[in-house]
């Protein structure tokens, strides 16, 4: 399987990862190798097989829709790199 540096650029953009030119080159080669190895999976016939997302077969585990106040809001806010009052500060995204 061939993965070009252009492919790597595209995936890195989707993943919001800034990569150095050396990393791009390295990952292009390594990902090609790993995906090549994964092509083994095409040998398995899965035409009538349902996917497994949860091994216990749990579905739609519900709870009562009751709001609960977190006991230590300040502890969460303290972790934010940038804050103002009780808000986490984010750069402007709308022009």
């Amino acid at each position, binding site marked *: 399987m061939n993965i070009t540096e252009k492919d790597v650029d595209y995936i890195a953009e989707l993943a*919001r990862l800034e990569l150095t030119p050396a990393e791009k080159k390295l990952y292009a080669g390594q990902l090609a190798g790993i995906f090549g*190895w994964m092509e083994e999976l095409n040998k398995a016939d899965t035409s009538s097989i349902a996917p*497994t997302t949860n091994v216990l077969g749990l579905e739609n585990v519900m709870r009562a829709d009751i709001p609960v106040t977190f006991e230590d809001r300040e502890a969460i806010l303290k972790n934010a790199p940038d804050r103002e009052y009780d808000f986490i500060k984010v750069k402007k995204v709308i022009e």
Partner: protein
Amino acid sequence: MEKATEIARQVKEKKISAAAVLERHLKTIKEKDGKIGAFLEIFENSAMAQARAVDEKAAKGLPLGRLAGVPVAIKDNMLYKGHKTTCGSKILEGYVAPYTATAVQNLIDEDAVIIGRTNMDEFAMGSSTENSAFKPTRNPANTDCVPGGSSGGSAAAVASGMCPIALGSDTGGSIRQPAAFCGTYGLKPTYGSVSRYGLVAFASSLDQIGVFANSMEDTALAFSVISSHDPKDSTSVEYPQGDDLSGAGGLKIGLPKEYAAGSGSMDAEVTRVFGETISRLEKLGAKFTEISLPHTRYAVPTYYIVASSEASSNLGRFDGIRYGLSVKGAALSDVYKKTRGQGFGPEVKRRIMLGTYSLSSGYYDAYYLKAQKIRTLIKRDFDEAFKNVDVILTPTTPSPAFKFGEKTSDPLAMYLSDIFTIPCNLAGLAGLSFPAGVSKDGRPIGAQFLAKPFNEAVMFSLGSELARAANL
């Protein structure tokens, strides 16, 4: 090596104080950890406060918990309120947990003393702890070798007597493989039996918190403490009654023929120790049957697609906005990209790329969906096998602990070292690695029991019988 069960008994009987127990273990850490590097941080102050509180309870004659005064280490991906959690990553540098993980709280509720947080592969991605952003951890049995991973710090701490119990997490073998490499017991409980609330998510459908200890009894005790149904983790369940199986006599143990077939690459010493383990179990009355798990060859690539896809989604939260590292940039998207580019290490970036690609438009069906379907086939293999056997026995790893740097340049070689441990996570089974022997040059070798979901008890009973037989 002090046993947790013994410490708890003596603390309850006021024969020793929890503070004295803690001081002894802190001394061991000071003597040994400079060389081993198991811990990222010792919680000396909070641990001493906890130990004193346990002693006060004892002095007042109040009832004490099942882990009274037992020092327990936690892997650096479990939250403990007021303490740092970094997941072995620079991207979480400075993060202080605002709440405590349920499994850790369960330990505290039974009067355990949380002694520190242990080193790990960054975000639990790795099999040697070499991917820690902070430092290497050395194998106590041979310091030229890795301790395994990703819970390498927890394994090394328990193996060198720094604490009798440590928690780890196991997504594809991250407890059982380091347990085998370091010569301890390592339990990967049934998916859903231990709450993942407060465990930093790697691959949510596979992650499970489990236990390292130096005896079967301590492993079983710690598991009974951390296992609980938690409304805060919707994938955790009330532990049901397992099958009534105890004692090796008459038990049917399955040996997967595909695992033996893949043993061309298996170390001769592992093969020898595995054969000895079979003989010991036969002497105890167990009957061995060959079983077939025909989709075994697909397990490792299936795992790397499922785990990396889930990781690429879970790790989206590390964006430089809410916590940890934040690198300045002109626009918000630059903050994201620079923070993630600089904060994540090479293996984490590789897996995010792998997962993002597998989930991307045009490739989802070919990779992620395909892998989830093969996961169904792998699970069915085990369902079929367990119709005929009570437990499955396999080597834990194809080789004993390898040397530093031996596999770092070849990600595929590193991935393949988890070949015997991965299927258990894909199928949601219970798995236990136990010390089975040592290589000629003194490196520990483990073997692994696999049991049906919620049948930890049968593995514990076999493990205890083997340990008793070895002492005779």
